[in-house]
């Protein structure tokens, strides 16, 4: 009896290790494919670089020329340092645009690319399970986008700190608000968009259609983001992150339920 249990546990462990191994193999292959595509490579570089550049420019313009939106007035205390902090916090959530749009683009390319390239049938005929394939697709996109997102923020931090050090009298970025946005809200957003993109791609065969559906679903979340950004409150960004967390779990559960090789193949129907 004891041996049977031990055998069962060994088998289970073996299956888990094999599953992780296959997941990493798929992830490595996907990463290689994404990076070998010139257009994807360019969009991975230019989009965050553009957001970083524009954000830095806006913060500096607002701080230097003391032109800020009416909602940011702080009761007559518009000192340069206050303005820098306010404008930085206002800009930060826009960084989340890169983690909401880029994963949808990459995940639709990843799965619909398999369908268009007729590799999906062969991939599904291998011993890789549905879960191995799903995780293998999520992992490279999530890590890639998150890496670029954090890198963009680091560049932004350095730019702002260098330029504002004289006015601020200290290095003030990263502060708590920005760390929450970058290390909690950002990853949650990236995961949500990646899973959503894969979920849509498993049901749709056209990259453009999938990206359009993805955008439609992402827009309300961006609306919520704008609301949070206007409030500039730490509590609200945490509440927003909690909502994202719940959405992440819900979507991930749904994707585990519907990401089935048979459904993918039948909807592909070639």
């Amino acid at each position, binding site marked *: 009896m004891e041996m049977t249990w031990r055998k069962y546990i060994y088998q289970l462990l073996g299956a888990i290790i094999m599953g992780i*191994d296959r997941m990493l193999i798929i992830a490595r292959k996907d990463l290689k494919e994404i990076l070998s595509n010139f257009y994807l490579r360019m969009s991975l570089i230019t989009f965050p670089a553009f957001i970083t550049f524009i954000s830095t420019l806006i913060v500096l313009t607002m701080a230097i020329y003391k032109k800020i939106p009416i909602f940011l007035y702080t009761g007559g205390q518009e000192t340069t340092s206050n303005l820098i902090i306010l404008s930085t916090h206002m800009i930060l959530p826009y960084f989340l645009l890169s983690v909401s749009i880029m994963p949808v683009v990459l995940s639709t390319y990843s799965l619909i690319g398999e369908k268009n390239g007729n590799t999906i049938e062969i991939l599904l005929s291998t011993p890789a399970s549905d879960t191995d394939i799903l995780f293998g697709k999520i992992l490279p996109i999530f890590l890639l986008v998150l890496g670029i997102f954090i890198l963009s923020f680091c560049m932004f931090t350095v730019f702002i700190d260098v330029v504002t050090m004289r006015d601020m009298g200290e290095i003030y970025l990263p502060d708590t608000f920005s760390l929450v946005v970058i290390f909690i809200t950002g990853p949650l957003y990236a995961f949500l968009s990646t899973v959503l993109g894969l979920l849509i791609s498993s049901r749709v065969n056209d990259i453009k259609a999938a990206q359009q559906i993805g955008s439609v679903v992402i827009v309300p979340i961006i609306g919520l983001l704008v609301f949070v950004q206007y409030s500039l409150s730490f509590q609200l960004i945490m509440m927003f992150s909690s909502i994202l967390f719940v959405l992440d779990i819900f979507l991930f559960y749904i994707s585990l339920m519907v990401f089935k090789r048979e459904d993918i193949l039948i909807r592909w129907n070639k």
Partner: protein
Amino acid sequence: MITINNVSRVFGNLLAVENIHFSIKDGETVVILGPNGAGKTTTLRLLSTLIKPTTGYIEYDNYHVWDYKEADNLVRCSIGFMSENSGLYEGLSVNDNLLFFGSLYGIDKKYLSDRITELSTIMGINGVMNIAVKKLSKGTKQRVAFARALLHNPKYLLLDEPTSGLDPISANMVKSILMDLRSKGKTIIITTHNLAEATYLATRIILLNKRVMADGTIGELYKYFNKNRMVRIVYSGGNGSIVTLLNKFDFVEDVKQVNKEELIITVKGGMENNWQIVKALTDNNIKLYLMDHYGNDLEKIYISAFGGNNNGH
């Protein structure tokens, strides 16, 4: 051994295959023939565990497919599947493609590297190993796809129209690879529209049109559909007595002298009578240089089975 037991598959309102029932012994090369929409690809997808039967079951050796995950994995590891398209990642090199698929089958790194070298030599793709797949011709892609399907040394090979869209030279190369695999005892299941290819490769033919219409060797199918077949022989000697000699057989319908030492014989039934022709010739000191099928005899069987019954899907 593969057993397909009364398998049906429905997609929405569309019945793709209905109560198909056959078994395939180890070492057989079975060609599934049928018109468009006959359910050939569905049958292959059912066999490759890509889709579940709506009713019925499939058994590989002692494993019931779809019974539990581990069995499916064991079955998948014993199958080499090749679709009509090469199914290779166009942006990756040939070597990267082979490494990726080999790793998914859990092949040990050292063994995989040796296996890739071995297969690349067999398939004649050594020179393109570091080239991106998108830069290769369709014929070369198909050879790479063959190498991919054979990486894990599968017991069963499932091939969906392997020569479709290939030029005659590439198609010939694929056929010779298949003949080689057949001689090595692999169990091969092929779907095709190409009747000449089916005649050349098959040890058994299944005629499918949603249901199994007929199943057997070419000879058995001739018998089943009561068709005559034509045999061409090239010989020397016999002083003109050969026509009289052959006409004595009940199974010989007609003998035509097409050249000085070349005959076209119309024969009833299967190939089991061929040996009687050979024996009659050798007994009469006639040297037989060549004996083969004349024309595409399988076409007659195909038309008998499916004539006017194309699903048009």
